[in-house]
């Protein structure tokens, strides 16, 4: 496997992890923009724009875009997060040219008013759908409370209000400001003709103009408040807690991932034996989220309403034990083996490598091959897990709880 990169003066950065023996080619545009780059009144515009990107260009109607993607036999999709918007397709190697042409063309969508009005309904349905699913917006509300005024508290989908009031002119302006070549990278993996990829992309984007302003980053003042969401007819009680974590370039991120696995992996972790194996809870999960300048740890508990208080006490006791006494070498080894195996299995597919490469490049302009990542996990010690536990799980978290009302 070979990592190839290209950057001309005015063109986008192009990077590829080439594997001549692969069956497929994956390609994607990674745009360095997401919910945190929106103003409060435009909350949700990055995600809404992700939908609108498929609605046609100067060269293609919306139907042609969809039809061509299917004609390529592409497994394609897009997603938006707090910090990025990604458009990707996995195709057979002989379709590389067409996939690059299509994905690049849709980065300059027509953004027509009529499509905007129809697609707004789809996005509102998406918001309504997630609002009906547990934990009923508790995750988004907890992030809002935890990050306060900081842009990382913005809801990725926005709200019914912001999406309903958004105008096409605002979206056009946002697109102009954020979908610029200095703010996007083209990523490929699998069987890639890199020279062709570079020549074709440079030719397609030659006329694109504009530059993005750098993202505003600053450390947030983390909130520690609590809130209750009342919900009709919920049978379980849902609790979301958020603690401060570490940023995407912090060297202790490997230890933090291992810590989350030791404490709350869905199998064999401390909370698994305390709460899941005993039938006290349906889910007890803990996972870190890494952002540019900071991060957080999200805890999620789903159990019967009458058990919530006792389960919360158990979780707190487990945390305190880790903070006071650390973890055993055996626990660390088990967590490490799980993560290492999962990384090796995931790395078998070029489409998975695409995301690892693209997200790593967006975060740190660098890609560590799998073996280097595995070596980082191998080097983590039980003491480091305890240190990161003291640092992250000691502070009072932000809490949002969903409770049943008649």
């Amino acid at each position: 496997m070979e990592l190839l990169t290209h950057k001309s003066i005015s063109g986008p950065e192009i990077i590829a992890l080439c594997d001549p023996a692969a069956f497929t080619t994956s390609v994607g545009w990674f745009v360095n923009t997401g919910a945190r780059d929106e103003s409060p009144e435009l909350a949700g515009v990055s995600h809404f724009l992700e939908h609108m990107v498929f609605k046609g260009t100067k060269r293609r109607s919306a139907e042609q875009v969809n039809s061509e993607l299917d004609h390529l036999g592409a497994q394609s999709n897009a997603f938006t997060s707090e910090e990025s918007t990604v458009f990707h397709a996995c195709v057979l190697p002989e379709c590389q040219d067409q996939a690059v042409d299509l994905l690049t063309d849709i980065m300059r969508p027509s953004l027509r008013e009529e499509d905007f009005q129809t697609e707004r309904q789809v996005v509102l349905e998406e918001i309504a759908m997630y609002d009906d699913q547990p934990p009923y917006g508790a995750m988004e509300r907890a992030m809002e409370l935890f990050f306060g005024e900081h842009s990382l508290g913005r809801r990725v989908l926005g709200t019914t209000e912001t999406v309903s009031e958004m105008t096409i002119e605002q979206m056009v302006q946002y697109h102009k400001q954020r979908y610029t070549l200095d703010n996007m990278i083209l990523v490929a993996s699998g069987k890639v003709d890199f020279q062709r990829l570079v020549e074709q992309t440079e030719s397609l984007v030659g006329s694109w103009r504009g530059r993005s302003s750098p993202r505003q980053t600053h450390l947030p003042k983390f909130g520690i408040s609590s809130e209750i969401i009342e919900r009709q007819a919920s049978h379980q009680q849902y609790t979301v807690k958020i603690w401060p974590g570490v940023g995407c370039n912090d060297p202790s991120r490997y230890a933090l991932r291992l810590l989350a696995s030791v404490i709350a992996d869905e199998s064999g972790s401390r909370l698994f034996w305390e709460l899941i194996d005993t039938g006290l809870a349906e889910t007890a999960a803990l996972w870190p989220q890494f952002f540019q300048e900071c991060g957080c740890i999200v805890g999620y508990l789903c159990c019967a309403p009458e058990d919530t208080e006792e389960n919360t006490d158990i979780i707190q006791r487990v945390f305190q034990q880790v903070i006071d006494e650390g973890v055993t070498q055996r626990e660390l080894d088990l967590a490490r083996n799980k993560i290492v195996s999962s990384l090796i299995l995931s790395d078998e597919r070029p489409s998975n490598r695409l995301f690892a490469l693209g997200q790593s490049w967006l975060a740190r302009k660098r890609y560590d091959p799998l073996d280097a990542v595995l070596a980082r996990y191998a080097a983590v010690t039980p003491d480091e897990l305890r240190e990161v536990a003291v640092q992250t799980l000691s502070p009072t978290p932000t809490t949002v709880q969903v409770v049943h009302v008649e």
Partner: protein
Amino acid sequence: MKQQLNTYRLSNGLVLLGEHMPWLRSAAFTFLVPSGTCYAPPELCGLASLASEMSQRGCGPYDSRQFLEELDFLGVERTSSITTHHTSFSCAMPSSAFERTLELYSHMVRRPHLPEDQLEDARQLGFQDLRALEDEPSHRCFNELKRFRFPQPFGRTAQGTLEGLQSIQIDDVREFCANNLHASDSILAVAGNFKWSEVCEAVERALGDWNGPATKTLPKLEPLSGGRHTDHASNQTHLALAYDCVPYESPDYYKTRALVGILSDGMSSRLFTEVREKRGLVYSVFATCFSLAGKGSVLCYAGTTTNRAEETLHVLLETIHSLGSGVSEDELARLKVRIKSALVMEQESSAARSHQIAVDWFHLGRVPTRAEVLSEIDSLTCEGLLDHFNAHRPNNFALVTVGSQPLELPGGIVDA
């Protein structure tokens, strides 16, 4: 690359299937054991899931913790699920861990401890699943559809019922395991990087003398039509619609599958275009083929805000019936290339491939080669699909809705 498919039938009836994928670092297996929901007594709905949970709480020389820690130490990614016919254990792992993992799973199906002092914990876990399901309207919708459309014993859901779970005693679990965890009618499908001779030897060692009673015969299934509504305080109404089609076992299955592909595969499919793209009625809409006990159903789903539910149902039905106006050459070409690409992409995942060959064997008693599937796909024509649609027009509709308002099938559609 030439496909290498192997079959080996053990003297106890267990079928071992293997697809060699030497370009991968992993191996995966799907182990289908005939202990699905339909084999439990009717008053003990939930027994199959509870038995599966209990069988993972210690087996052979290992207690519960030792068993799970051993799997974690090996780095085995694993899931288990309960269907109407089977308990399915799926594992993916670095290929070096394959033999040891197989040994652990053989203890689980052959020598589960089924400890009485853990029954209550396992039961509580079952209650947790039931309550969580009640809160998830789209999953609830499909569960309700299964209950409604497929009479006993086929309509049981994996989660079972509150009453069923409450009634289960430890002897029920032990009897269920003794009667249903057995080699005959079990399928072990392996895919990835392995040596076939070594796999056969390992399976003979671990499972060669595994025996037990034969699988019970099931009654004939007749899927039901009609409608049912479940009240749920939600923004959206969730619609699950089913109608008859030919089953997986049918020589015409590829035609039915292609018609459903025209409806639902990809962003240019008819449902996505008509229901979402043109009208913005939904975020999620799809159709899929489902085969059970030799009967095929097309299952469709749409979730939409309540005041647009009636229009959504109308467009959904209209789009299904639009297949009667024929399929264009362009639609069929897109579908063919999507299916062919998916077949190539499947070679990048040992887990996906092991699942597919297990499913193929269960329904067909053989595993079609990639070349055979490609040939079937290539032979599809627009005329052939239209003829098939007309010979098997959608009928025997069942509609289940979950939301704040009921919805009914338009008059006459049930017998259309």
